[in-house]
């Protein structure tokens, strides 16, 4: 047997018998707590002084799902506190038939959720390695004053416009959009859902309710609707800590840099948006710094009849 094979087999043979001593668990947990406390103190001290230009926290907002394989850089934008990069990845490109099936499954689950509820849907045909997709049914507030109050409590100091594009698009409702948290502890759930899929003969979606959300990264969305049914959504995301966001999208997404009243902005059109009703999501996004916080503004629409120019005009019309 070659030396290479002998080495590989020796490592393989040892794997089961060489485990981390259980006694180390308490020690490492105690050291983590101590170091996390020290780190918290250091961050507070830095806040008093000049803020570092390098991002401290990497936040991942995944547009389609929680994964990012080999990716291509599309654009970046930044304020003093917030930096945003968008990448495209082949991993997010689905065949048309798969895309339509997955959207139907997501819609079916979403229709069964009560307002404010979130779920993890089992979609092995989309993400092989980690087949869970987060779905949320927002709780809309139709009263504009009440919604404005919610926004103020969340730190949005700007006055909510009554309408967009003159009087064409009127305020309809507002909602806090939350992202369900998907992560390491879901292995047991995946195994359970896979077993359910194997034992089930019908085509029913397989999913579970979840109450674990990424609370720090909520999006505050106001919906404006025109008489003919088209809708435009205006959203704020507020970051009061130094934050880095990496977004991922389908490789078919169109991107264009814009000058929005002197501010750098980006237009994107994603033709495979799983959460958009039409499957197509257009968006204009820009960043601003206000009262020591970073704000990400987005003007979006999944109405198929709305043109890029209309969306850009709506963004430009904002104060």
């Amino acid at each position, binding site marked *: 047997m070659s*030396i*290479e094979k*002998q*080495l*590989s087999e*020796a*490592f393989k043979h*040892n*794997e089961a*018998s*060489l*485990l*981390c*001593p*259980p*006694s*180390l*668990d*308490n*020690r*490492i*947990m*105690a*050291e*983590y*707590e*101590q*170091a*996390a*406390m020290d*780190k*918290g103190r250091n961050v507070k001290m830095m806040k008093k002084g000049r803020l570092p230009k390098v*991002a*401290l*926290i*990497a*936040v*991942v907002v*995944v547009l389609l799902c*929680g*994964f*990012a*394989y*080999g*990716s291509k850089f599309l654009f970046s934008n930044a304020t003093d506190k917030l930096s945003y990069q968008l*990448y495209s*990845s082949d991993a997010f490109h689905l065949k048309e038939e798969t895309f339509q099936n997955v959207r139907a499954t997501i819609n079916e689950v979403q229709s069964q959720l009560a307002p404010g509820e979130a779920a993890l849907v089992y979609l092995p045909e989309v993400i092989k*390695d*980690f087949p869970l997709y987060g779905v949320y049914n927002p709780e809309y507030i139709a009263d504009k004053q009440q919604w404005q109050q919610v926004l103020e409590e969340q730190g949005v100091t700007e006055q909510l416009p009554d309408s967009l594009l003159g009087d064409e698009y009127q305020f309809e409702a507002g909602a806090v959009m939350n992202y369900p*948290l*998907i*992560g*390491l*502890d879901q*292995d047991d759930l995946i195994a359970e859902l896979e077993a359910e899929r194997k034992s089930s003969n019908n085509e029913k979606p397989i999913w579970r309710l979840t109450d674990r959300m*990424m609370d720090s990264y909520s999006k505050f969305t106001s919906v404006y609707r025109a008489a003919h049914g088209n809708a435009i959504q205006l959203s704020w995301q507020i970051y009061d800590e130094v934050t*880095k966001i*990496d977004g*991922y999208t389908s490789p078919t997404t169109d991107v264009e840099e814009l000058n929005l009243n002197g501010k750098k902005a980006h237009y994107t059109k994603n033709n495979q948006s799983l959460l958009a009703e039409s499957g197509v999501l257009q968006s204009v996004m820009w960043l601003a710094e206000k009262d020591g916080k970073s704000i990400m503004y987005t003007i979006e629409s999944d109405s198929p009849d709305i043109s890029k120019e209309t969306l850009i005009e709506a963004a430009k019309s904002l104060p």
Partner: protein
Amino acid sequence: MKNIDRSPWLIRMSQGDKEAFRMVYEETRDHAYRLIYYLTSSKEDAPDIMSEVYIELLKSAGNYRPEQSFKAWFNGLIVRQVRNWNRKSWRLYRIVEKVKLMTDTSHDRASEAQFSAISDQLELYPILRKLPLKTREVIVLRYYQDCSLEEIAALLNIPLGTVKSRHHHALKQLRRYFEQIQGRKEQNDYVYREATK
């Protein structure tokens, strides 16, 4: 370790979420321990290096990019911590810090010693000890982690030619060592058979 997105958990643990840290730790500890065990010059140091690795993971979590392989990124972090450990002054400084931090480690130490005794039975450890750290890194990453030579070059941040050369020399040395062991075994076997005739 599975190829899943750990970003949300790394973010949460870097913000002080103990449960998120526990998740990451429980999922990675055996892998980290084995890699440290194979790389370190003294197996008694493995528990201390483990603790350094997880403190460094907390500090570096913000540098991890989700499009990277977590395993490769984490392996790089472990390799750097093992190298750091070899610097004596650093090691002494950390020991002083640990004495301050830990209230009672006597039970842990006893348990770790017992565990090391079990691990002493493994045959790989003395073989790897024959190699200098730089070549040992290449062998462990190649045959334990199944990394390609290109991946090892990227992970260790050295030219591919250097990796190839270290790999070649390490195999030559190990081949010689295996032959010696084989020779000794055959000799013992011969003596045993002679004595029982």
